């Protein structure tokens, strides 16, 4: 447990000092969302209709931006070998790294999302749903993404490959995330979608680190 905190602290410190990716990720998120009114026209009712989907799809892409650096830097400078030789389960350290990744990308995205929702004229009823789905969904994105990032370590064209591996696995999160907001906007009950999102998160929480740790171990062989 102490080691978990230690690695989260170190990754956050690294992110802070390196002029973290978070600013870039949020900038990408904002910029891409702003592109949509230019692409589909500024009519408020159209924007309102597509806003949940636009926000979620863009957040999905943005959260992928910084993924390929998640293990790459540690892999290149030999830190990953030492992490794998730490007297604790590698899965725990993966969870620590994912937590740090979520704090530096998922959380800023979640904070930026309501502002962008205003720009897209999203119905006021959808805001709570937007925040809650982001809260439940973005950690899953980080978890699944960590598995992908671990798999492409040392691969040729790792960055492009990563999106090919990870995006299809993101689809359920996208569907239920947008579904919940759509229901909320229509004044319907959306607890089912939230439960499903939570369920996916709970399933990913042990499984994704397990797969990621296995991938890291074989990458080091």
């Amino acid at each position, binding site marked *: 447990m102490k080691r978990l905190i230690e690695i989260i602290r170190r990754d956050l410190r690294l992110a802070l000092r390196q002029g973290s990716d978070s600013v870039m990720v949020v900038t990408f998120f904002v910029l891409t969302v702003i592109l949509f009114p230019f692409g589909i026209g500024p009519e408020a009712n159209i924007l309102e209709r597509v806003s949940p989907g636009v926000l979620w799809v863009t957040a999905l892409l943005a959260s992928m931006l910084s993924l390929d650096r998640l293990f790459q830097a540690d892999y290149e400078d030999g830190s990953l070998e030492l992490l794998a030789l730490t007297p604790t389960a590698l899965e725990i350290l993966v969870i620590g790294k994912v937590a740090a990744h979520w704090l530096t990308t998922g959380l800023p995205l979640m904070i930026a999302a309501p502002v962008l929702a205003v720009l897209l004229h999203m119905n006021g009823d959808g805001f709570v749903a937007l925040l809650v789905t982001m809260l439940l969904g973005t950690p899953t994105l980080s978890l699944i993404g960590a598995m992908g990032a671990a798999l492409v370590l040392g691969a040729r064209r790792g960055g492009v490959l990563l999106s090919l591996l990870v995006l299809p696995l993101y689809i359920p999160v996208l569907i239920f995330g947008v579904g919940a907001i759509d229901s909320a906007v229509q004044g319907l009950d959306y607890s089912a979608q939230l439960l499903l999102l939570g369920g996916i998160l709970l399933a990913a929480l042990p499984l994704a680190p397990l797969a990621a740790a*296995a991938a890291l171990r*074989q*990458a080091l062989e």
Partner: protein
Amino acid sequence: MLGLSTPSGFIKVSKLVSPWLWTACVLLIGAGLYFALFVSPADYQQGQTVRIMYIHVPSAWLGMFGYSVMALASAAGLVWKNPLADLVAKASAPIGASFTFLCLATGSLWGKPMWGTWWAWDARLTSMLILLFLYFGYIALQNAFDDPGRGARAAAILALAGFVNVPVIKFSVDWWKTLHQPASLMKMSGPALHPSMLTPLLLMVSGFTCFFVAVLIVRVRTEILAAKIRALRLSEIHAAQGSGVAG
């Protein structure tokens, strides 16, 4: 199991089985085609186009079957470190992907007369489309490493992760579909299928499966031979180095 777990054992057994498989494949598909094209009736709504089903449904089945074979072989490769299992996984991916593509293509052809459009976001077709991308990811990951062993292990982990995800994706796509368009346009499952259509369908499904297994055997055999050639080359390089540098 019959010495199947070693490469030489596999080649021995496959030589025995292969001719029978190909024969069964030709007979089953031949009979299936005869029943499908001449015996089974045209649908009273869809007309002759219903016959696309006899290609479409077996392809869909093999798309999913191929992924399952791939995932199971990957699990075996990871657990028992059996290189043959890795080869089976590797060999089944392109076959499965081809059938998934065939399923999408025939679905599209069928969709034109039925829905008046080449593509509809039907739940089944959408799931198959995602499955195709899962295949692409697997194949791309496998070929992204210089060391084939490395590629096999990484891809095996991905195959298992994908396998766990397939039901979740399937469920979420079904759910998404019912939300947006509750009426299903295509009805071909369940007891509604008349026996005159069921017979050719089952014949085609089993014929296609035989074809899948037969092609799989050919591919695995090729992979084994390729690995042997690589091993021979390496030992030659090693021998040359050994005599040149003295140790």
